């Protein structure tokens, strides 16, 4: 195996202390800011006697955070095959562009005439996304994927209200993205989860038995979270439209279809995008993200306000607020502009043919891993192992568990020792001991081989020296966490930590 040893900064037998613990009274860096006002004119109740902030010199602060990054792992360190999350390499040029003063110092309330460039970028990005998805109009407002799903559900509600129809139910397959049911319930619908068949696709009979004139929408992901294409999509769409329901495409991850097929062509009425997945903007740690929503013509009037409009005659971009049927705003101002800009740059960098190539490489990479792992003891596919996958593949480590007591979690932990980020595990829930692998298009064959070899060696180790797998990771800054303790006694803030220590 390739050598790997994560940095482990230790201070007096303890891992790099918290910044509060490093604090020394009186220490400070130089500050370019003026001294605070001695006696601010504020009500007494709002004033604090003491503010517990760490006190360190500039170099100490820089070193502290540098050490933390060295004890971390990210897509810039190596492969990050976290299925369903599309952890692809984020081009640095996109970061540079978003950091330009012209982009980062905009104020959302600036007069339209002073932000024509920004509005043009948003307008064009809308057009790109509409073209990519086969939709007629796109709103860039949602700041996260789940917010995009939620918006689609609000649009669904508005659509049926406008028709004077009362529909209460949304159908979601059990292989759908985890947030779908919550988004529907948040919008006031009840949710019925439909099972998959033995091929890992939606069970068409159960689906038909579940839909009715009370069904408002169907939320589908295609390819689904097993990485399998719903090959009965035409029948599914027809059955749903026959009862008058809308079809929402969860496009969190479009990495398997760019330029190959489009939700609009499959018959979907709505789609959302996670720009922070497919379109190469950074994600993790809670954002910022962007989850635009595209719709077909008849739903356009319900999109949030404002949309970006273009007055061709005067060559002028503007924010269109005059939309009486709109569901209103779903996010302050215009969404996360910095993320939108990075996605726009990504699309321009690759171009139409580049996006198609990205999808082809992503699917090829996933299939390369699938074929190699199918020949590896200890891992198996639970569904349709004869057919190729799309951008991701979900293996089960159940054989390892049955034979050696080594679970998917143990495999994931041991992978860290190989300098490889673990796949998503225990999701989707319809696969026991699941390892959901999505390599993305940005990994080289050498990196894929490294990942496959790591999984192979873990499977061998499970039989020869299971204790090693069960006690992993040992080459990381922190070993296996006591998850039971962590969930029973969570310490989430410095305050909680201090209280606990007392």
């Amino acid at each position: 195996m390739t050598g790997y040893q994560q940095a482990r900064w230790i201070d007096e037998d303890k891992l790099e202390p918290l910044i509060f613990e490093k604090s020394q009274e009186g220490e400070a860096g130089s500050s370019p800011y003026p001294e605070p006002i001695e006696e601010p004119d504020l009500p007494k109740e709002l004033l604090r006697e003491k503010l517990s902030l760490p006190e360190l010199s500039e170099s100490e602060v820089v070193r502290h955070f540098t050490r933390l990054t060295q004890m971390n792992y990210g897509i810039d360190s190596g492969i990050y095959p976290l299925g369903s999350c599309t952890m692809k390499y984020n081009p640095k040029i996109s970061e540079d562009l978003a950091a330009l003063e012209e982009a980062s110092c905009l104020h959302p309330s600036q007069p339209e005439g002073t932000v024509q460039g920004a509005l043009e970028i948003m307008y064009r990005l809308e057009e790109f996304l509409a073209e990519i998805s086969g939709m007629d109009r796109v709103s860039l407002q949602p700041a996260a994927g789940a917010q995009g799903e939620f918006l689609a559900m609000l649009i669904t509600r508005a659509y049926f209200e406008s028709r004077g129809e009362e529909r209460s139910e949304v159908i979601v397959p059990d292989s759908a993205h985890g947030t779908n049911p919550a988004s529907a319930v948040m919008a006031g619908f009840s949710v019925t989860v439909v099972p998959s068949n033995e091929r890992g696709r939606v069970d068409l009979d159960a689906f038909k038995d579940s839909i009715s004139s009370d069904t408002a929408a169907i939320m589908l992901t295609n390819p689904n979270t097993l990485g399998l294409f719903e090959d009965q999509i035409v029948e599914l769409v027809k059955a749903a439209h026959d009862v008058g329901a809308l079809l929402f495409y969860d496009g969190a991850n479009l990495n398997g279809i760019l330029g190959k097929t489009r939700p609009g062509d499959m018959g979907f009425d709505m789609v959302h995008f996670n720009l922070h997945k497919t379109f190469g903007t950074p994600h993790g740690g809670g954002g910022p993200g962007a989850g635009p929503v595209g719709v077909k013509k008849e739903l356009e009037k319900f999109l949030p306000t404002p949309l970006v409009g273009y007055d061709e005659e005067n060559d002028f971009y503007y924010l269109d607020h005059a939309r009486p049927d709109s569901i209103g705003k779903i996010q302050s101002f215009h969404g996360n502009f910095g993320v939108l800009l990075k996605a726009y740059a990504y699309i321009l960098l690759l171009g139409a043919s580049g996006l198609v190539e990205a999808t082809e490489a992503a699917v090829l990479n996933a299939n390369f891993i699938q074929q190699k792992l199918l020949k590896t003891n200890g891992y198996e596919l639970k569904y349709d192992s004869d057919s190729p996958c799309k951008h991701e593949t979900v293996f089960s480590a159940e054989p390892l568990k049955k034979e050696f007591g080594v679970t998917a979690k143990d495999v994931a932990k041991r992978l860290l020792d190989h300098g490889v980020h673990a796949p998503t595990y225990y999701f989707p829930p319809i696969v026991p001991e699941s390892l959901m692998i999505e390599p993305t298009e940005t990994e080289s064959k050498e990196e894929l081989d490294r990942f496959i070899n790591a999984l192979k060696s873990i499977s061998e180790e499970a039989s020869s020296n299971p204790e090693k797998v069960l006690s992993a990771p040992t080459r990381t800054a922190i070993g296996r966490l006591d998850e039971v303790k962590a969930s029973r006694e969570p310490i989430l803030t410095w305050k909680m930590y201090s209280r606990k220590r007392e």
Partner: protein
Amino acid sequence: MRKLALLVNPIAGMGGRVGLKGTDGPEALEKARELGAKPIAPDRAVEALKILKEEARDLEVITYPSEMGEEETQEAGFNPQILGEIKPGETTAEDTKSAARDFLDQNIDLFLFAGGDGTARDIVSVINTEIPILGVPTGVKMHSAVFANTPEDAGKLAARFLSEGLPLREAEVMDVNEEAFRQDELDTELMGFAQTPYESKLIQAGKLPTAPTGYEKADQESIAQFIVGSMEDNRLYIIGPGTTTRAIKEELGIEDPTLLGVDLIKDRGLLVKDAREEQILQEAEDTPATIIVSPIGKQGFILGRGNQQISPKVIRKIGKDNIIIIATPTKLESTPKLKVDTGDPELDEEFQGHIPVIVGFGLRRTLPVT
């Protein structure tokens, strides 16, 4: 240190190999012995205990004398604390109950027993849901949802529960009328409920609380809130047995509802407690009605087992479309298919296909009925 109570019903399962379908009562036992039946429970208990010994460290074990646990625990390498007294070779259901009583105030983390439905019934009649129980399957009748699939699984499950913590779920304790069973009639009765640990396929182990107030309870509450929120006035609600359905009655603030019977609710109040078939028919005569039931864990029966009061006649009167099935996601994990056994094959046939089950607030799953 975790504390395990272990009890072996040495005669459980003896009737099986000699075709007796159980050893409830002294006559059946004697007959089994005459037919040459040998005890099987002790060996199976040892099998489970050996795995437990291997996988769980620092375990305090208390048990009952000689073949009711002392011998088995020692053979597996434990050094148990012994309570109570028995007459070796002449153990009865009373011994099981007195053991349960003796274990009750011992701060037990898990009550592991080797036996069958009868043993589970005797234990639960004393401890109810006070202590989590887990069965090493050794009996002839095992309709209760408290048993692991094999002695090996029981040992593993117990070890993980005691060392890492696993979630608990409600489990039905069922028993069959042995007399009827010997006549090849299956007459299962719901005897009570237990708390039992289980290993979720859905959620990685160790992330859940081990208290009986875990996700199961929260899920029951959210189902109950959803049901109560959609209740209509002047409508009869026929509520089947179980803790999932009991949560509805709790949500309505109904005091002392029945756990094993069928309660009738109207206008958010208790109309008839523990109703019989004719009372149900009488109340539903001129009032629109809804039946709310929960499947029997693992087996999946929604009608005809444990709720025979909801007879074919009642079901036809109320209508299939007015039946609401509720179950927590954890229960459905081990219950992938639903079954109907009303005793009326034609009616059972009408249920074939798919049916929605309410599994949370505004959340249903479509399940096959076979």
